[in-house]
């Protein structure tokens, strides 16, 4: 039985450790922070629209960031 070979046994345990650690890294540093932002899609909206809104707000006359942001999102919803 090859499974009883100690070297293969060690190799399997080591690969399991590495892959499990990578899974843990991805879940704990990428997926769960998204969950605790309550919604996944907020992240996408922020990523794509935040900079545009920020610059629009800073160069606009009213300068109200929140209003411009909501306007932008409403436009995109239409």
């Amino acid at each position, binding site marked *: 039985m*090859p*499974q009883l070979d100690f*070297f*293969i*046994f060690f*190799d*399997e*345990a080591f*690969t*399991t*450790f590495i*892959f*499990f650690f*990578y*899974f*843990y890294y*991805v*879940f*704990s540093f*990428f*997926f*769960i922070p*998204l*969950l605790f932002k309550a*919604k*996944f*899609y907020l*992240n*996408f*909206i922020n990523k*794509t*629209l935040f900079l545009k809104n920020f610059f629009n707000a800073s160069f606009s006359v009213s300068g109200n960031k929140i209003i411009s942001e909501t306007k932008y999102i409403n436009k*995109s919803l239409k």
Partner: protein
Amino acid sequence: MIFSPLEQFEIFPNSFYIFQSSLVTKDFFLFSNLDFSFLVSLIELLNLKWFLLESKFVFPNFSYFFLESVFLVALSMLVSMVGKNAQANLGIVLTLFFFILILNVLGLIPFGFCVTSQIIVTQFLGFFAIGGLTLKGIQNLGFNFLNLFVPRNVPIVMLPFLSVIEIISFISRTLSLSIRLFANMVAGHALLHILMGALLSIFSINFASVLLLIVFFFTCVIDFCYNAFRNGNCFSSGIRFRCSFFDLFK
């Protein structure tokens, strides 16, 4: 030709000729079929990661809500069973769940390799899960962690015996957790192999046609389930029958 049902669990240390002939000798560098299956699982994980983080969809679709609901169910279970302070340990719980899920599903692919059918993999997971739990418990509770081994409402005469039994059961939990998964996987895959061999020998048909039938069946099932969740009926196009997937279970 029918092989032994236990042949599928064998590990070949150097299954790929490229790695055998490389400068790195095979004694120091192993790339087995198990490592290959792990790499495939990694591709699955990266696909999920790309889908959640890198894709350009601004508004959520079905898959986002599905994954989010899975995460929230795990979180609510953790909070209800352990308490609100256990929210920080959601990562390890979800990792264990998805790790085992992805590896088990990948084992079902024809000509694939079931990683969780190896005792060392499950033993590793069980040992480190229980070891981490113990360390965390000692860190949080200190000396009070030993209360776990003292059952309540028991006469004092019986306490030493019962605490020994409790300690043995706590230690053997690593074995029981790992052997449960290992035995289920080995038994299930061996049974599938035997049934497949019986099908081939009884009907004396080509293996490829059986494979095609299985693939057709599973695609139908996946398509039906997807459309049932998505549209409320089992069919994506054509005449829409007034038969919902959920109506069957009312």
